[in-house]
């Protein structure tokens, strides 16, 4: 778990591929701990720990309603590595989440500046607004829709 993360540069769509909408999709988000806001910055040079929604690179936030810890015995919150295809029970409570943040305007503005790629920075803040080590996800993807 970390309090902030910056991705490798994500390739922006080519100028000859017009789009109506652009989404940042965060896959595999952990929600086992405290609830938090993930503040998202695009192409964010110099985003410090205190950066907030007023920063020029801020493009929006996603939120995660967390479980607040494990209240069972040892192993209760371990997600099974495999699932029997005939298992009709609901999925494990802590199966990772997905969040979708629409960033159409921000991506178009980057393209106007002829940017070819952009890093994604996420800062996680819990209810007290301080950055906290609650952020974990598997992948972030930029998808555009014509």
């Amino acid at each position, binding site marked *: 778990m970390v309090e902030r993360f910056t991705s490798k540069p994500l390739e922006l769509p080519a100028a000859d591929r017009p789009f109506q909408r652009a989404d940042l999709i965060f896959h595999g988000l952990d929600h086992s701990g405290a609830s938090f806001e993930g503040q998202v910055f695009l192409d964010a040079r110099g985003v410090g720990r205190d950066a907030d929604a007023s920063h020029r690179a801020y493009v929006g936030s996603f939120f995660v309603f967390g479980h607040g810890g494990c209240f069972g015995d040892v192993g209760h919150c371990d997600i099974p590595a495999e699932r029997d295809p005939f298992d009709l029970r609901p999925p494990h409570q802590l199966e990772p989440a997905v969040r979708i943040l629409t960033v159409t305007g921000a991506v178009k503005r980057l393209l106007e500046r002829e940017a070819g790629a952009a890093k994604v920075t996420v800062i996680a803040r*819990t209810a007290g607004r301080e950055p906290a080590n609650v952020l974990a996800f598997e992948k972030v993807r930029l998808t555009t829709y014509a």
Partner: protein
Amino acid sequence: MSTSSPSPTQAPRALRHRRSVRRLSKGQLADLREATAAAQAIGDDRGYQYWAGIHGLPLPISCTHHTELFLPWHRAYLYLFEKALQERVSGMTLPWWNWTADHAGGIPEAYARRRAGGRKNPLFDSPIQPSGRPNPRQTRTVRAPGAPGFLPSADEVEAILRNRDFTTFQTQLESIHDGVHVWVGGTMANIASAAYDPLFWAHHCMIDRLWYLWQLRHPGAGVPARLLDRALAPFPLTVRDTIDVTRLGYDYAASTAAAKGPGHG
């Protein structure tokens, strides 16, 4: 019956309207308080603690968050909780908290006042049963709301309502929902305890209402067919049962007015 949107033309006779908490009449608010207080006084499976406990602690945590069943499961949950309250006060309905409006007001007054009518306000807080406490010392619900400006705006909600795909709509709506839980803070800020706060139900009515509005706006879209027969444990309902709110006996009409007709005499 459509599987994608409410069908107000087929509404049952006794359809009830869930209203904005800021627009409740004195009588409607009194009914809500009376029903909540009565449920809080019952210790068995008709009571407030039982229903709040289904969402989180005591284990198992039955709510579905971060899954495809988020909206249907919570619609079923609200429906059954409201039924339990209606057994205490016939005809009452749960209100919705429109957190896109009146940001300066923060938490609605109906829930923010410690006392109402010379008595303790049952919407202000609630006891938490010992087996429902994430922290053993937290015997009652508490809140620690953030700055009003951090609540979702009407523009944010409008952008989400424009989604035509259910899965994308639900995922983005759940994120905003999560943000309001974070904003209220305290007991509401984690899954294990959130439903013990009386404000939880008004927040989720708002979420349910936004799904209802999305259904009206996109009548051709709907819940993916593969989900319709999924059970919403522990409730005796499937996803299909939750699609049409008028079959559940309520809707979210913005306003209603009625007058008697000439009759058949």
